Structures are given as C-alpha cells and as structure tokens.
C-alpha cells in the first residue's frame, strides 16, 4: 500500500515535464508549426531557470520567469523563420535545438564559472490543498504536490476547453488543418501561428526548468536526457489533443518512475536495461498507435497565401 502510494505520487510528480512540453508542442502543432527543438529548449529552460533562481537568491519565481522568457524567444524565432520567412520547419527546429543545447552549458559557465560542485537552488515546495489533502490515499496521491503539478492538470483541462469549446479554439484548429480555408474566412493565420509558437515555447521552457527546480536543485549538462524527443512521440500518439496528452504523460512518467524504482529496489538486472525501457517502450507504443492517430492536416508546412493551394 505504502509503496503504491509512493509510486503514484512520484508518477504524478514526474508527469509534469512531459505534460508541459507536450502541451506546448501540441499547441504550436494545432496551428501547423511543428517544433522539433524541445530537447534544446528544455535544456536552455533548465539552465536559465537554475541561473535565474540562483542569481535572485533562490527565488523560484524568477527562475520560472527566466525559463519561460527564453522558451518564448525560441518559440518566436521558430515562428519568424517558418511563418514569415517560410523556411523548412524541421531544419530550423534542428538549428534552434543546437543553439539551445550550446547555450544551456555555456551560460552557467559564463555566470558561475567552472566549479567543482555546482551551487544548489531551493527546490519547489509541496502545497497540500487544505481539506482535500486529508482524504486517505487520494489526499497524498493527488492533493499534496508542488504547484506545477496542479498547474499542468488545470492547463490540460483548460486547453481542452479552449480548443474544442470556444470559437477561437476552432479558428486555431482550422489554421492547422487548412490555412487556405481559414484565410478565406478572414482568420489571421500568421497571428495564430506566432501566438501558439511563442506560448508553446514558453511551456517547453518551463518544462525544462522543472528538472532543476524539483529533481536536482542544480543544472547538469544534458539533464533532459531525451525527454524532449519522447515528448514529440507522446504528442503524436496523443493525436495532438490536450486530454490524451495528459494521460499519455502519466504513462511516460509511470515508466520513468518504475525504471528508477526497480533500480533502487536492488533487483538483479543491470540498471542499463532499465534505463533503456522508456525509449524502447515508446517505439513499441508507436508501432501500435501510429497508424490510428490523427495529425493536424497542415502540420509541418508553411502557408503562403500568394501560392496556389496544394
């Protein structure tokens, strides 16, 4: 029982970076902008989240804002190069990925210098919800987490409502599905693409900042460990919809936690096998779901109103 509670608690805790990054990816994708720089944006978000918090004397808020700011800048760059300059989304995404990866290790070296042990920042505190957190079992599993856990759940529900229950959400989806039709109805396709790419970048940056702020208290090189790439897979087989993204994140987090728990449990398998599990499981799941999933019709393409429609 006790270990089940711990497992579920940790799964919810580890779900957050997946939810935030995947919702960010989903949001941009719904307008047709396919971001592949997650790994780099998360790294630079982790790096600046840590540095921001460190420079502000351990202020979590400053760290979060710094990470979201830099994520937003990367999103803006992606939107500008693809939407305004009509450059290949994948190639630009890769360039941003590289720049983000480079900056993530460069900035701490410039600000803090090379030290034997990196300084630590305070990690996010748990905020138990009054009354609800006293419910046996559920209280500890669901209602005594850090604020970003609650935020990621509310965000998923909010995005679902926005996309499928509001006029603006419908317009956004139409831009990602058929920008030609959307344009002819007077919808400003570029504006949708810019806004979602920037908001998406901010969420991905925040996802990165979660890692030093909750797990480690410091930034280490390459600490995202492929989560950015896993996020892309997750978004695909969640069919670019907010609620399946949330469930899918639980699945990814569950695998991640399970592989670490086994490792700590002293089971006689070399730990390297356990660390392979998330990536292999993802490939397996893709084999079974890739055919059935829906993808926004215009994903990865750039709309040029002066060109004839496809």
């Amino acid at each position, binding site marked *: 029982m006790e270990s089940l509670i711990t497992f579920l608690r940790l799964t919810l805790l580890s779900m957050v970076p997946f939810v935030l990054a995947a919702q960010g990816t989903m949001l941009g994708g719904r307008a047709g902008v396919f971001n592949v720089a997650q790994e780099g944006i998360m790294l630079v978000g982790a790096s600046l989240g840590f540095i921001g918090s460190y420079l502000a004397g351990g202020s979590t808020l400053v760290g979060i804002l710094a990470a979201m700011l830099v994520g937003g800048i990367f999103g803006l760059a992606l939107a500008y190069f693809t939407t305004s300059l009509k450059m290949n989304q994948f190639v630009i995404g890769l360039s941003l990925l590289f720049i983000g990866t480079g900056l993530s290790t460069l900035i701490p070296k410039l600000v803090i210098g090379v030290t034997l042990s990196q300084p630590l920042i305070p990690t996010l505190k748990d905020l138990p919800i009054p009354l609800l957190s006293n419910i046996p079992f559920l209280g500890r599993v669901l209602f005594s987490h850090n604020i970003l856990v609650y935020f990621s759940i509310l965000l998923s529900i909010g995005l679902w409502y926005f996309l499928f229950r509001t006029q603006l959400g419908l317009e956004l989806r139409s831009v990602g599905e058929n920008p030609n039709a959307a344009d002819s109805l007077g919808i400003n396709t570029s504006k949708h693409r810019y806004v979602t790419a920037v908001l998406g970048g901010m969420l991905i940056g925040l996802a990165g900042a979660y890692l030093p702020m909750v797990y480690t208290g410091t930034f280490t090189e390459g600490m995202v*460990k492929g989560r950015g790439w896993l996020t892309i897979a997750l978004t695909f087989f969640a069919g670019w919809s907010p609620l399946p993204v949330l469930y899918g994140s639980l699945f990814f987090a569950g695998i991640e936690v399970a592989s670490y728990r086994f490792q700590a449990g002293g089971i006689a398998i070399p730990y390297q096998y356990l660390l392979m599990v998330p990536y292999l499981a993802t490939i397996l799941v893709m084999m079974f779901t890739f055919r059935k999933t829906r993808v926004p019709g215009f994903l990865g393409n750039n709309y040029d109103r002066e060109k004839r429609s496809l």
Partner: protein
Amino acid sequence: MTIVRKIAPYVIAIIASFAAAGIFIALTGANIFQAYETILFTSFRTPNGFVQTLLKFIPLTLQALAFTIPLTAGKFNMGGEGQMIVGAIAASAVGIVGADLPAFILLPLVILAGVAAGALWGLIPAYLLYKFNINEILTSMLLNFVSFQIIDLVATGPWRDPVAGHPTTVQIGQGGFLPMLIKNPPLNAGLILALLVAAAVYLYTSRTTGGYELVATGANPRAAAVFGINVKRMFVFSIVLAGGIAGLSGVIEVAGVQHRLIVGLQHNFLVLGVIIALIARGNNLAVPFVAFFIAILEIGASAMQRTMNVPIEMVFIVEALVLLFVLLSDVVRRR
C-alpha cells in the same frame, strides 16, 4: 562569377557568426582577436594540431554523409550517433574475441562487423518506416539513447579494463589495428577510408542509375513511384547505407584511434554531422570541405578552452549560427 555567388553567403555567414560569438567571448573577459586566432589557426601551427584536425575530420565526414544520404531520398537519419556506437561495439567485440588472429583476417572482420552492426541498427528505424509508416526521425533518435546504455553495459561488463577509471574495455588484438599512415603524431588509415567513402558516395549519387533513383525519390516521391521506382525500398536502402557508414566511423574510432571501446567516444559527432550536412545543403561533394572547416573550429575551440579559459561551447554556438545564417541566405536570395 557563379562560384563567387555560391561562396559569398558562406563567407558572410561565417563572418556574421564570428561577430556574434565575439560578444560572448568579450563577456568572458578574454581578448577577442586572440580567441579568433586560436580558433582558426591552431590546426596549422603544429604537425600535431594538423593531425588532430584530420582525426576529427574522419568521423565528422562520415557522420555528415550518414545524414546526407537519406536526405537525398528525403528522409532524416537522426541515429548516426547510435549507429556509430553500435559499430564501435561490434568492432571491439570482434577485436577482443579474435585477439589472436593475424591482421589479414582480423582487420577485415573488425571493419565488416562494425559496418554491418551500424547498418543493422539503421535497419530498425528503416523497417519501422517501411512496415508501419512510423516517422524515422523519432525512432532513429530514440535508438541513440538505447545505444548509450548498451555501450555502458559492454564497457562495464566482462571485457572491462579494471585499471581504467572510466568505463573502458581492454585493448583489441594488435591484428585489428588500422595501419598507421604517420607514426608520430599518429595518423591512421581511417583517413583514406573516409575519403574513399566520401568519393564513392559522391560518384554513386551523381553518376549511377541507383543514385539517380535515390535523388528522384527525394525530389518527388510521387513522380518517382509513377516511373516505377520502389520509393519505400529507396528509403530503407538509404537509411541502412547511412547506418553502415556511421558504423564505419565507430570502427575507425576503435581500430584506428583508441584501440579499445570507451564510453563517450561519440562525443558530439551526431550534432556536428547534421550541422555539416545542412551547411553543405545536402551536397555530398561539399560535405568533406565543410567537415574540414568544422574540424578546424573544433580543434581551435579545445585549444581556446585550454589556453584562454573560454568555454568550448562558444564554438558550438558559432557552428549553429553559421548554419542558421547559411539557411537565411537562401531566403535573401529568393527575394
């Protein structure tokens, strides 16, 4: 005139990215011009510097080709690093198990094993693409992370060198070493292999029917299919071939440079390979030249870190910016 017009965007891109990096270098308090000088000329000051540059040039060229070949067919192979690692593992496994074999048997076996392993590792995403239509970018990338664990497993397993602090296997048999072109500073025959592969890839894609089918597939898969090219088979073939070439880069790292399997031998080669391939705009003839330029920057960057305390990532940013500016020059030309 045309050649000037072709090269001009590159020159402008390089100057612009160096200028941008200068801002960061100035922030570290280092002398900007001394830093530029170190980055650009370390490779040419000493014989050792030049050989180091060539040793970087080998895997960079092969990794870039492992990206450009599928790119020719319109596919993205992000698994070069994993294919390199798996190739290195297979090469060292054969080299350790067959340590007593004479060179004329062992060396071909080592090379063959590495190339085959890399090709097989490439076959996984290629097959998933062929059979299930799964995006090859994701699967090839995710397999890199799997390969990181496999190399760790092998290097800490029964072949582990107990004396080494870092996870490393024992040496492969002498018969598995690539011959040396120069003894001191050591330069192995992998350079010739890399140049041969680069030349072969160029001739294949530009002068043969099979290569033409590859290009046609990339240019317009639908039209290619109408003309009877099995497009899906071309995708598979291009990624498997790329895997074999990436595997060869792993072989050279083991049989030519380290003579053993070391965790982390892949450095940053995938990312740099992709940067080189994209700066070269997928042109197989340009790849070796761009790779040589990037090798110069990389060697200069490590020297700059050692002597001036400027972080090595600075040059990585320069390389990424060169790529971005080269890409931007396309936009400028379009207008």
